[in-house]
């Protein structure tokens, strides 16, 4: 096995192990919160997913800029795949959030600044994915890159929504640091690491899929060329 394949295998095993370890930590290491009870453990999925959604959209932002600057197709691929995975994690946030909210706040949804901006963010990147399917190939890259840049404006707004407006959404990172108990901090860090690895695993797989599609196009083009050459 080449070193590249060994590295890939280690990465995949690490992802799997981290997820398993995170699961253990969530249920058997972290204490049960006194006011919210067991439901609070949704926090360990909800928070890392939110950050990873932001990360995904940030990667789309940077890749879009690089695509416009360098015109290399690979940046377009990176932007598009990262947006897809960002949407996946944003969906997870928007599903786990209300599930957590129902027993705690007694409503599935409120038009709170944090919730609203996150929903808008989700819509923006869904629109991004739909834009790609609606325009023709030659302009797909340019248009989605511009949209990827414009859409990112919403990410800082979503993140800072709790600080800018009054919100009932709990604040995690305060000026005194992250104010939860230490075993919870450890569990959060571990789950965050596990989801991070998962994010990059999904990203790599998705990009590989796109590369395979490009390979197919290349082979098809070669065969076409070959047929033409033979006919002449």
């Amino acid at each position, binding site marked *: 096995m080449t070193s590249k394949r060994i590295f890939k295998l280690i990465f995949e095993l690490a992802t799997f192990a981290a997820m398993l370890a995170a699961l253990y930590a969530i249920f058997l290491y972290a204490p049960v919160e006194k006011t919210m009870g067991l439901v609070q453990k949704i926090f360990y999925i909800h928070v890392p997913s939110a950050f990873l959604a932001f990360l995904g959209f940030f990667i789309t932002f940077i890749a879009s800029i690089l695509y416009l600057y360098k015109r290399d197709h690979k940046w377009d691929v990176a932007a598009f795949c990262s947006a897809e995975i960002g949407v996946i994690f944003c969906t997870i946030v928007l599903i786990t959030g209300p599930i957590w909210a129902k027993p705690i706040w007694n409503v599935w949804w409120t038009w709170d600044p944090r919730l609203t901006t996150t929903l808008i963010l989700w819509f923006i990147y869904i629109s991004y994915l739909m834009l790609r399917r609606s325009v023709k190939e030659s302009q797909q890259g340019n248009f989605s890159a511009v949209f990827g*840049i414009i859409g990112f404006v*919403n990410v800082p707004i979503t993140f800072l929504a709790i600080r800018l407006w009054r919100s009932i959404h709990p604040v995690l990172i305060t000026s005194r640091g992250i104010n939860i108990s230490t075993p919870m901090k450890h569990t959060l860090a571990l789950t965050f690491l596990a989801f991070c690895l998962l994010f990059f695993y999904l990203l790599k797989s998705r990009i590989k899929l796109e590369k395979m599609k490009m390979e197919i196009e290349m082979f098809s083009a070669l065969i076409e060329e070959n047929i033409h050459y033979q006919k002449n």
Partner: protein
Amino acid sequence: MFPGILWVAFIFSALLGLSRSFGVERDRGTLLGLLLCPVSPWEIFLAKMIGTLIFTVIMEIFTILVFTILYNQNLLPFLLPLGLVVLLGTLGFSAIGTIFSAMSSTSKARDVILSILVFPISVPVIIASVKATGLILDGGSIQTVYAWLKILVAFDLVFLLLAFLTFGYIMEE
């Protein structure tokens, strides 16, 4: 409820102007001619945006007149702050709408794509405008509206800056 209804009417007028903004160009193939002019893409953007802005402002004036009559509201004492908010909000919406009108004019489902693209991005502008309008109509002074005005101005500047940086790429064929 009144500011919300007002702004829904404004948004629809703006969308009408926007879909026509680049739609006509693509249909008649005059976009190439436009690009051949010795002007930068930014100037094309400004021209298109101002066109949409003027169209929308005219529609908004009519809409405000109709609403004043239908809802029996006297808007004269609020004319200046209201005008300012409406102008800033329409400016932001037109800016972002012009960019997306250029993008969506190439596809077949032109208006659908335009709406899908414009609405999520322009939500902060719309919310700020509606809130500011509501505060003004409830009798607040410019001071109370200041926070929302800041947001409006910030977004207008951000959208204009983004248009300046990226419109050239949209204009490429």
